[in-house]
């Protein structure tokens, strides 16, 4: 099932859970936008402001903000069922 919601991931290059999250999106054919908060300071501030914390990944699905690779929360936000 495809979602209409916009998906954005705030990540760092060496973050295992960021890579796992992106793999999950690819596997489920979810289009996503990625920003690297290790180099993009504006994006970093945005991630902290939106999630009220400093951990990555921060995943934005529509208006929902998910911290970490929380597979169940992501599936729910995307309306995926398996």
């Amino acid at each position: 099932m495809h979602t209409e919601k916009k998906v954005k991931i705030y990540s760092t290059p060496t973050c295992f859970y960021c890579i796992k999250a992106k793999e999950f999106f690819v596997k489920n054919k979810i289009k996503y936008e990625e920003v690297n908060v290790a180099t993009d300071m504006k994006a970093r501030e945005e991630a902290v402001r939106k999630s009220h914390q400093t951990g990555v990944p921060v995943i934005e699905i529509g208006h929902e903000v998910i911290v970490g690779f929380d597979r169940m929360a992501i599936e729910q936000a995307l309306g995926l069922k398996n």
Partner: protein
Amino acid sequence: MYDLIIIGGGPAGISAGIYAARKKIKFLLATETLGGQSAVASEIQNWIGIKSISGFELAKKMEEHLMAHGGIEAEEGYLAEKVEKISGGFKITFKNGKSFETKTILATTGGRRRRLGVAGEKDFENKGVAYCSTCDAPMYAKKTVAIVGGGNAALGATKDLSVYADKVYLMVRSENIKGDPVLFEEIKKDPKIEILLNSEVTEVFGNDFVEGVKYLDKKDNPSTGSGQVKELKLDGVFVEIGSVPNSEFLGELVKKNNYNEVVVDHGNQKTSCEGIWAAGDITDLPYRQNNISASDGIKALLSIKDFLNGGK
């Protein structure tokens, strides 16, 4: 009904899976995430046969090795919730609501990060208190941070942070470093890093985000453990003090020790419950190492194979 369900996908689970595939055992490997705890390590220098590899790459290589065998059933997103005895085996229920039946179980669910258990730690989790340096180190560019711990994971995290942060403290509770001297020598050479031995963190404080820690400086009295409470101004605290076993889902079915580790026969990885084996960091083994977990997973699998064949 499966012949075997391997719960957990770190080095113990994947090694067992590879051996199970080659022995054509009908099995399912169900795990939260393939790769294990060291998947988040920036560098592993002691995996036999490979001089240096990132935790992520090693995780990928192990996964590829497993999946190279045809018809492997390996599922991610599975956190075990409970195990029940049924006729001829066990029923495992996972937190995603699914359940499966199997003749035998190999539990390789490893451990999760040990928390400091001090005031403020929970309140500031992800607000300065962090547990994954390869994930979050860049967020501390030009900041002051402390790494708490004295094992290889702590030493690795200290290196990761020194790439970004302006000042890095390594806070070790005891007088000695548990990690490899090879790594420690590297850290000692880095002018950004200051090592505080005999320093026990007692509180994390701040407002919206972490602003520092209080710690007991036992430097002058390491034997008695008494000392002076001091304060350190910090933007971040990375906690790397080992793991606690993910053994709750086994309930009372198997014998555990006081640390909640599953007690096994270290010759064949059998637990106290016939039909359940355990390997890796979930067990009462004294050493936490990828190579050891892999080897214990294999021992377990070979013993399971004998059991399924009607032997002991």
